């Protein structure tokens, strides 16, 4: 009996601690959604299927564990066509974080590296629509986007200069789904970043533009007030899959089992 109690006690601290691996994700229920982007083929909005999303962006410590297990993704080994030369340049070495803190979101990662990390967890990057859908929520509402106070709060982060150190993950209030740090921490890769065709190219009008983009015109926005979303789209539409920046990180998603 005494022995069993000791075992139980030994296990207890785990329960109160950081989520076990299976719990890195929350289930985001599906629903009808109107993107801030005006999709000509989905003028009345779209339906998001339920999915699982990581509570927090992937951290330096988590990404370090990944490159230890997958040496081909270590800085200096990853092919430059898949990860540009500044890949993981915030770390002091290929396997040492240096001044980068373990609990900071990992940045300086390319789309290829982010996708490889998620694939190694039997997961994937979220689609843009999944990301935007989860990011429309605040602490109590699934869609807070019409609330001027919510917009103001988010914009105040985007207005901050990005020169300071990145904050640790986990400090942000969980939204109604339990997801943290969708705003106020880093920009995040999405699986279909290259589907966001809003770019400098697209502002050109006329024949050249029609030739460049097959089918209907590329995306335009429905919601000029939603600057925060539009800034995300502008950023993601301007980067190539091998690019990395100091404030672009990611989190993974999964289909429901």
């Amino acid at each position, binding site marked *: 009996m005494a022995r069993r109690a000791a075992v139980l006690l030994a296990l207890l601290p785990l329960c109160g601690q950081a989520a076990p691996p299976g719990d890195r994700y929350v289930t985001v229920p599906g629903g009808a959604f109107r993107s801030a982007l005006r999709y000509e083929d989905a003028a009345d909005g779209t339906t998001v299927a339920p999915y699982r999303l990581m509570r927090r962006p992937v951290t330096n410590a988590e990404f370090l564990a990944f490159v230890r297990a997958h040496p081909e993704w270590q800085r200096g080994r990853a*092919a430059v066509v898949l990860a540009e030369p500044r890949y993981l340049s915030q770390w002091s070495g290929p396997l040492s974080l240096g001044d980068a803190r373990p609990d900071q979101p990992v940045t300086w990662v390319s*789309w290829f590296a982010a996708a490889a990390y998620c694939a190694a967890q039997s997961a994937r990057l979220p689609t843009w629509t999944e990301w935007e859908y989860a990011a429309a929520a605040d602490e109590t509402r699934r869609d807070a986007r019409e609330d001027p106070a919510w917009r103001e709060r988010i914009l105040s982060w985007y207005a901050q200069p990005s020169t300071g150190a990145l904050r640790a993950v986990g400090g942000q209030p969980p939204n109604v789904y339990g997801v943290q740090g969708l705003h106020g921490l880093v920009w995040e890769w999405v699986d279909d970043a290259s*589907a966001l065709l809003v770019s400098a190219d697209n502002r050109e009008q006329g024949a050249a533009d029609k030739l460049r983009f097959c*089918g209907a015109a590329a995306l335009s926005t429905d919601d000029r007030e939603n600057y925060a979303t539009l800034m995300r789209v502008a950023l993601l539409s301007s980067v190539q899959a091998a690019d990395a920046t100091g404030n672009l990180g990611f989190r993974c998603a999964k289909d429901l089992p």
Partner: protein
Amino acid sequence: MKRLLRILAAVLALAPLSARPATPPALPGDSVYQLPAALTDASGKPVEWRELRGTPRVATMFYTSCKYICPLVVDSLRAIERKLSAAERARIGFVLISMDPARDTPEALARIIAERKLDPARWTLLQPDPADLRGLAGLLGIRYRSLADGEFNHSTSLVLLDAEGRVLARTDQLGADGDAAFLAAVRAAAASGTGSGR
């Protein structure tokens, strides 16, 4: 004795082969063939993306049910093909990767080859594994989005790769007139493309 000589001759004939390195030289880090990707060609044969190494190629993406731009993509590639000399043509490949792998089966791709009278010796039409599609598009710098009606919005860059898979040039200019600088780059690649690979 005669038999021994024959074996010896055979061994000697093989010698040059065995002198070659067993494995090809390492791919350069800026080669698009660094990405592992599985595809299927128009004959239904599985193709590893990196098997395309060895020949300079002009690569782009398309989908067969596209009515407006995609025929123009094929036209543009054919215009380049026509402007090359026979010798140049023999050293350049043309690669069309479908962004609609659900519908662009090998049969659908074979139909395009037949309809457009593409020379299968030079033209490679590929159905990618859906899981590898975004990565391939990322390598080629091509952006696309599938629409509710089955069509796609997409950019239409033609990308010139050297035999090792390094991007030499790209153009967004389509049409029969094409992009003179891009054509010049294709010619130069054909001229230098014999040294590496095959």
